[in-house]
């Protein structure tokens, strides 16, 4: 073999450039792999049983029928959908005209999943070679945290937003280091599209994702690897931040107005991701072991390698901070830094973000293992990835947090839709996330709902519980909230209660409700109260203006179309293949600087 076929890599590893594993895996192949893994699961509609899938479909259903009117009277006796960024819901609404609501959800989820490895690949290339980035992208397909968010939690917007955000960040890096105006424009538009999908991702992404990118760009400028000075990089970063900040202010203006008008002052609702995982094995497995999976074995390498290069330290620090946040109440740091916001946020998404931030370093690990052990390493890594993903899918049915099996809601919706029953409001108890399915199937309105931040009725916000349908799971606070609502049944025209859990029957009996019908062989019972007047609209100052409805219907989805258009008319310039070379970016050890 010609000695020139060998390239020295990081003073330890010898790379055989003629070896088939020495080339990066083509991005198209990675996307097809993601399609092969997640496509069938989505065709099986596996996420339909997740916690939030029905909530997303409920929002989408409203947009499909009232695109420019975000005021939805079906939940909470009326609430504004401007309290949640609309992009994913609007895309579901658009697709639903063709493939129906549920398949539209699966389709948008699939698009988000396919965008994710592309984003990871492009994000990882800021620090590592194309080959290592391709391994990082492959790893992102099999993340336990991704499986948990998609198939268990149903956090469509989180996944979609971070996928878009990861695709935007390389443009930020290029703009800061190369002053590329094309990158500036595309980065801003993609960033705004990501914000239109999920606001929380953008807010925390500024620190956790964009922070390391900015830091790295500064290091590169300092070391002379970027065009311009450190000051220039910072100035360009500031220009980008101001532009995105102003854009987000405009695109999500109705959201910010709603938030300013009604800040989230409700009593904090408990969430297991805020617990100390060391004090409960179930939460530790659900929020730590399953999301990380085999990635836990790579932690020593991630810390060692991340600290070995000045360019990688920002990434390591971003990963570490995000990982600590993902531990919820296991450490006090999130509570110290977030204050009251700690009680509002859920932290499983931070674990997901941490795994994404680890991917570039995992890509380096994969490359080094494959360089050293060839096929054995490839097989081992593949098995680790599949085991991680498989464990997360197994956990869907094994975990004590699993959503209940789907309920036959047809008799409930049929009851509400006949004989003028829709003139009254209703509550469905023990239905879990199926509440949104009931709402989609009927024109009747409810005082309950499955979106905590939109609640304004004092019977709900004054208590530390979430949905009325899940009252019992929130203990005394949940039952107190339900009692408060039942006490004011006449005020809200609340006449019908559907019970899918006998737990609630004693309360209904003692407070004067009577069982009137039995559905599904007794699995569901309908209860009524005789002296309730028909429901009337509840006055609310949270109703957005017609102009806000217009903005909400045009700008978020408009920016997503613009992002697609820009990718078409301003395609990314193909980078010179660097698979066989040590990437300049990644191989500057601290000792050598």
């Amino acid at each position, binding site marked *: 073999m010609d000695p020139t076929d060998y390239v020295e890599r990081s003073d330890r590893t010898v790379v055989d450039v003629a070896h088939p594993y020495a080339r990066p895996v083509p991005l198209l192949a990675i996307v097809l792999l993601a399609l092969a893994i997640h496509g069938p699961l989505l065709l099986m509609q596996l996420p339909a049983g997740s916690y939030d899938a029905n909530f997303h479909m409920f929002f989408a259903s409203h947009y499909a029928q009232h695109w420019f009117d975000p005021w939805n009277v079906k939940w909470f006796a009326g609430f504004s959908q401007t309290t949640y960024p609309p992009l994913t819901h609007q895309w579901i609404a658009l697709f639903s005209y063709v493939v129906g609501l549920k398949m539209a959800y699966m389709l948008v989820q699939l698009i988000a999943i396919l965008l994710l490895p592309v984003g990871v690949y492009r994000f990882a290339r800021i620090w590592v070679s194309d080959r290592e980035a391709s391994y990082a992208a492959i790893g992102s397909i099999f993340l336990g945290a991704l499986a948990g968010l998609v198939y268990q939690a149903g956090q469509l917007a989180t996944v979609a937003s971070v996928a878009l955000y990861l695709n935007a960040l390389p443009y930020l890096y290029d703009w800061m280091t190369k002053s590329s105006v094309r990158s500036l424009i595309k980065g801003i538009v993609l960033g705004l599209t990501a914000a239109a999908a999920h606001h929380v991702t953008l807010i925390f992404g500024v620190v956790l994702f964009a922070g390391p990118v900015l830091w790295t760009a500064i290091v590169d400028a300092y070391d002379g690897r970027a065009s311009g000075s450190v000051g220039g990089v910072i100035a360009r970063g500031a220009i980008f931040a101001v532009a995105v900040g102003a854009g987000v202010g405009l695109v999500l203006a109705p959201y910010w107005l709603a938030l300013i008008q009604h800040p989230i002052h409700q009593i904090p609702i*408990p969430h297991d991701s805020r617990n100390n995982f060391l004090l409960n094995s179930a939460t530790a497995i659900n929020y730590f072991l399953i999301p990380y999976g085999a990635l836990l074995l790579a932690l020593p390498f991630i810390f060692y390698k991340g600290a070995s290069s000045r360019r990688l330290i920002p990434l390591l620090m971003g990963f570490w901070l995000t990982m600590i946040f993902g531990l919820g109440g296991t450490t006090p740091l999130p509570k110290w830094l977030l204050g009251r916001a700690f009680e509002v946020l859920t932290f499983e998404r931070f674990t997901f973000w941490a795994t994404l931030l680890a991917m570039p370093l995992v890509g380096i690990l994969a490359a080094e293992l494959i360089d050293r052990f060839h096929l054995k390493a490839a097989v081992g890594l593949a098995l680790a990835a599949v085991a991680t993903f498989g464990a997360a899918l197994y956990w869907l049915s094994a975990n004590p947090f699993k959503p209940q099996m789907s309920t036959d809601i047809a008799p409930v919706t049929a009851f509400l839709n006949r004989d003028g029953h829709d003139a009254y409001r209703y509550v469905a108890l023990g239905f879990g996330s199926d509440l949104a399915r009931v709402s989609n199937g009927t024109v009747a309105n409810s005082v309950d709902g499955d979106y905590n931040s939109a609640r304004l009725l004092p019977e709900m916000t004054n208590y530390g519980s979430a949905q009325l349908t899940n009252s019992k799971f929130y203990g005394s606070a949940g039952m107190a909230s339900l009692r408060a609502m039942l006490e004011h049944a006449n005020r809200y025209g609340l006449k019908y209660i559907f019970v899918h859990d006998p737990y609630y029957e004693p309360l209904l009996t003692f407070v004067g409700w009577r069982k009137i019908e039995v559905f599904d062989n007794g699995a569901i019972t309908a209860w009524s109260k005789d002296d309730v007047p028909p429901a009337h609209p509840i006055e609310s100052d949270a109703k957005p203006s017609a102009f806000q409805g217009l903005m909400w219907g045009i700008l978020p989805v408009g920016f997503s179309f613009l992002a697609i258009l820009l990718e078409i008319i301003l395609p990314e310039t193909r980078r010179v293949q660097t698979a066989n070379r040590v990437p300049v970016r990644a191989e500057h050890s601290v000792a050598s600087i």
Partner: protein
Amino acid sequence: MRLILPIVLAAVTVVLIAVALTSANATGKTVGISAGSSFLTPKPTTPDQALSNLLLNAKRRNWDEAFNSVSNAQSPNKKSFIQDWTGSYGSLRAFSALEGYDIRPLHITNDEAQMRVRLHWTTPVGPIEDVRDFRLAREGEIWKTVWPKSDMPIVPSQVIPVTYLRWDLVSGGSDDEWGAKNIDAPRVRIVSMNPLDFAEGAVVLGEVVNEDTIPAFVNVTATLVDGSGNAIDEETSFDKIDHILLPKQVTPYRIDFPKVKFKDVKNVRMNIKATLVPASADPVIGVMNQKVDPDYQGKAVLRGDLFNESGQTVNIPHVIASLYDNNGKVLWVADGYVERALLPQTSAPFSIEIPKNMASKVQNFHVVVNQYSMGRN
């Protein structure tokens, strides 16, 4: 840097975890499930710790670990131990979950300890507090809880004839939901109404009688009106009433108005809604041995026993009492739920707290029992 930074990050992480573990509000509670165990259960080297471990495991329904905290001296049956916590026969305890507890030592020696625990339960009908004394004994280096034998009633096989009245209702068709809209509503009347300020709000209470010969489903609504005729608030009797009244039956009612004072109220509009419903006099629950006594804290409570005279289990009895002064005026309406199910031909004790400022004025009382029976309501 290659080694220093990872070591620093690992050390900071460990310190942060340690801080979280030692903080006062470190919790391992879960939402929606009662599962999981702690990775770090402290050794029960003190009575307080031993009882804490037992209660935490009971709260999480880790019965194996909870039972391990129980002393073997009395050899309690594990099944009955679990049943003590989870209830039986569809009782209120069977619907309840332990939400929290406060432990207070009563007496501690080298080998024995007496602890008083206030148990906070969440139930379908609202939060319930239960005070229970536990005895603990030292076994070597650790402490364990001595679990008393439970005294579940044993019901012998028997035949109980049912001779009570029952009223059925033939509805006019599917258009009728419940109650008969084409039959005159039963005649019911508010026989007394007493508005008073209480704690942080106002209360309207009194009694309602069914004057008809058919059963009635009743609901009382009160509207508070200010000087200009505007409604200040409207509330209903909710669960402070026996909603189903048999002919000639009287029930107390109480309507609470939190955050309203009667100095702002000009008028109270009362509205009673009665509907004809099917009803049965069975199960008959007798109230016996009623008396006002002080409890362990010196508070006045109305105690007594409920006796189920029927042949069917009453899962959740609900006791509502009118308390009268020496003029026969309703001073207060108090209520309470009984945690144990009433098996056929058995009795169970009840106790209802009487407000401190009322206790000395109470001269008489009238107790009615409402009930929830699975599959019959």
